[in-house]
């Protein structure tokens, strides 16, 4: 009896398997594109430092087909959530290096510091894609006097509630050999990415002049510009960075296109894909007193 039961179970199993094989085997069509409700992909930056704002708009399509020089048939508006002002953006067509066409929407206004903006793109029979971007408030860089104990350091303060600092870099302008300056001065950038500390009212960056001198020496050696008998004369220091909104946060602090290309990575767009940031460049130059410059290792004459 048990054997019969076992056999009947096996028979049912094999019949079911045969049925599955035959039914799945009859299917000939393939659903390769699943489709999505998400309508558009947006990329752009709102900045007070430009008098025109630009945002690229890609429709989310079901085929990877050749692009055509025709209207996107979509409406693009921005709303200043601080003032309530609504602007309608214009479509424009650009041609990429490989001949493809892309749509860039634009509006002639300057984004305001500290204002929040909502961008909306709507197309016929498509849901609306939205993104909100907050422009960081206006910010000032204050460079404090250097400090010297074992080495030379200098505190740089970014005063203002900036959510995030990116591409933080300190650039040293140095002369590397005697003679006319025009032929022997070069800029040596030192990355300070991720070195800023958040403090009340802003950010602080401690510029390590002594350590940077060592880096500059190695970089000049690598470029074949280092002369042992001369060293490096410091002409000036410039701190450069981008003050940006909070979502502008690439994984690991690196802008790796192979990582960021994956949809959903560093994306702040609702009902769509892509990323729209907001921010501005910050830059401040200075030259410390000769006493500190020499103590850091540079020459001053």
């Amino acid at each position, binding site marked *: 009896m048990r054997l019969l039961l076992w056999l009947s179970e096996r028979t049912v199993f094999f019949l079911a398997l045969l049925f599955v094989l035959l039914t799945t085997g009859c299917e000939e069509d393939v659903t390769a594109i699943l489709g999505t409700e998400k309508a558009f992909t947006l990329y752009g930056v709102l900045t007070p430092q430009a008098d025109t704002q630009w945002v690229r708009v890609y429709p*989310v399509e079901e085929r*990877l087909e050749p692009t055509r020089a025709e209207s996107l048939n979509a409406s693009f508006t921005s709303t200043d959530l601080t003032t309530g002002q609504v602007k309608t953006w214009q479509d424009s067509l650009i041609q990429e290096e490989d001949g493809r066409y892309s749509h860039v929407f634009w509006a002639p206004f300057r984004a305001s510091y500290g204002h929040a903006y909502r961008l909306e793109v709507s197309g016929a029979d498509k849901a609306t894609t939205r993104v909100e971007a907050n422009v960081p408030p206006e910010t000032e860089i204050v460079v404090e006097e250097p400090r010297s104990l074992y080495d030379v350091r200098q505190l740089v303060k970014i005063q203002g509630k900036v959510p995030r600092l990116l591409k933080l870099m300190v650039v040293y302008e140095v002369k590397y050999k005697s003679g006319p300056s025009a032929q022997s001065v070069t800029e040596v950038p030192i990355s300070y990415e991720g070195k800023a500390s958040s403090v009340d009212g802003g950010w602080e960056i401690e510029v390590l002049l002594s350590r940077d001198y060592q880096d500059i020496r190695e970089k000049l050696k690598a470029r074949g510009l280092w002369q042992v008998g001369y060293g490096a004369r410091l002409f000036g220091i410039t701190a450069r960075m981008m003050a940006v909104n909070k979502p502008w946060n690439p994984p690991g602090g690196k*802008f790796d296109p192979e990582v960021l290309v994956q949809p959903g990575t560093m994306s702040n767009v609702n009902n769509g894909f892509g990323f729209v940031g907001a921010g501005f460049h910050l830059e401040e130059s200075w030259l410390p007193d000769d006493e500190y410059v020499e103590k850091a290792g540079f020459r001053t004459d």
Partner: protein
Amino acid sequence: MSVLPFKRTLGVAQLTLFVFVLGLFPVLSHAQQATISGFVTDASDGQPLEGANILLESISGETVKGAAADQDGSYLIGGIPSGRHALTVSFIGYEVYRDTLELSEDEARTVNVGLAPDEEALEEVLVEAEGTAGAARVNAGHQEIRPRDLERIPSPDVAGDLASYLSTQPGVVSVGDRGGKVFIRGGEPSQNIVQLDGMPLYQPFHVLGFYSAFPSDIISNADIYAGGYGSQYGGALSSVIDVSTRTGNKKGFAGAVSASPFISTARLEGPLIKDRLSLIVSGRRSMLDHGASQYIDQPLLFSFSDVFAKLHSKPTEASRLWITGLKTYDRGTLGKGVEGSPAQEVRWENQAIGLHYLILPRWLPVKADLSISRSGLTSEFGPPEKPVRSSSINTTRLAVDATFPGESYEVAAGWTIDFVGLETHLGGMFQNIEEGSPPTLHQIAYYVAPEFRWGGFAVRPGVRMQFYNVRFDPYLEPRLRMSWDVGMHHFSAAGGLYQQEVVGLSDRRDAANVFTAWTNIPRREDDENKNDVRAGRLARAWHGIAGYRVRPNRWFELSVEGYYKELSNLFISEWTAFPRLTTRLQPATGHSYGAETRIELQADPFYGYINYGLSFTRYQARQASLQLWYGTEALDFRPPHDRRHQVNSLLGVTLYGFDLNLQWAFGSGRPFSRAIGFDGFVLVDDIENVANSPGNRRVIYEKPYNGILPAYHRLDVSLERTFVFDAAELTLQGSLINAYNRRNIFYLNVFTLQRADQLPLVPSIGLKLAFE
């Protein structure tokens, strides 16, 4: 090059000495005894008779020694006491040869035998051939294939081809009737060893999947190892396809021409110096443009051709010398390019030439095969006039293989030295990468594989010592094959470690992608390679196979086999949403396991078999971004060649001189990556006008390999009749490929939704005229 610690160097030297002495042991043990050796051939055409039995009996009638001729027809019997002996050489279908030998101590005599065909017993030859090969005759992953096996498979050509046969095997996944790629038991095409008379070939399968560089007309036999292969093979992870070719007729001229809407062929063979030097030349050319595509509702934008030649000579009674050459050409168009770019075309060319010198020296009881070959593959992909990708691999091989036969054992040992040159250019959307190396000493390998036999039990342990360019220390690869015959039951097992230094990179997002970029594993210590995930890490696989076969009577045979492959250090392209293959690699591991059942039936006038294969293959890739994208450290996926179920069946019947063959094949759907849609990508990494930033197209994929393509199934039918005249044979064949016109998908461009199907219902008529 690193300096080796003394202890390690000593260990390697000791090991080398040990395995070398092991190889010499049979030679030493044969001292002071007589030896006979020679070649057994068909007296009518000079062809080697593999499997011929050689018996040496003492004059009293007691059997003292025996041997079977190998694929070259050679045999060697050592350890013979001096005295008078009766020699008997027999082979089913041939008249028995008898002679008496007076052998003195230490004598080594060459005895070549030509067996005359026995016309009355000709049918028995076929029976015997089917008994040693056959659809169910699998021995721990090993299957021996004869031309007769190939000719049974219906194809749009009168002659058979190894490619058509392979596609009927349960562990073999091909992407359809076009493409030129073969995946064996979870392995990838670049992980297969393919050899023609010992010459490595890298892409010998033609763009139209029925055909390869191995038509049945030129094949003597083919050994297919789906895994667990012995120590004589190395340098690849997955499987072996080892093809031996026929020699040309040494007695008289023979030839054949055939034509069909798919292919036309010609073969000519004959003696250049009677009984001493023969030549066989074979050429084939596709006829699709003027043939099949004219009457089926589908353009067949493929063309291919191959030319094979073999010059075989008998320099002395105890040696054979032959030169084999092969050249193939393939071109195929695979749909349109992305975004209106010109149609993508793939082209590849194989070239190979090799020289073999086989000797049975009188001064040593050994069969030695010295060979040198040069072979290469060049492939290109892209628009016809301006390919954007190209890759080439060239190998010069020096090899010495020796067999030391004994009474209850046999030792095979040998050296192989490969010089390999690689060159790859990946342009266009492949990011303009140039990579290559001039021909350098790539590997030196030494192997020894003794085989011991006790009654029905045979065990062949082996070790392969591989010195790869990637590091000085040798890589040791233990191997084991064993079998046990108990009455009608046959048990077998095999396993071992396999490593591969030359790897083929291809886009695993698409199994139909026919372009492979060849590269090698760089050394770890090179500064420029310190960030290369491949550096110093050879791809590696462990194989394990266990099988059972039973043949309760002459008309039924059943085999069941299970296998497991553990794969590590696979380097696969990182997952990317760009619509092109990235060359950034990520390490991956994988495993493949499954079971195969084969049933073969032979009851005159019927012949048939049914195979079922169940297979599971999974890869685990580790890409730094996976945690970010999918919240997991490793991407566990079914690669596109993971076909879960496969059924192949053949029914043949011979009635009134007609051979009718029906072949039905079923394969469950293969995985593929579905897309959600397409948009663009701009890297927003600065505060600037995005109109000035370059934009790229992007594929918004669902999670990788979540989709399953429709199942594949097809019925092919052929009807054949041969008319025999005095000096010629005319064969007419009619065939129906895809008899019920199933729309089997070959290729789906997920970017454009362009779909290319395999062949629709294709009727074909072919004829072949052979003369001798």
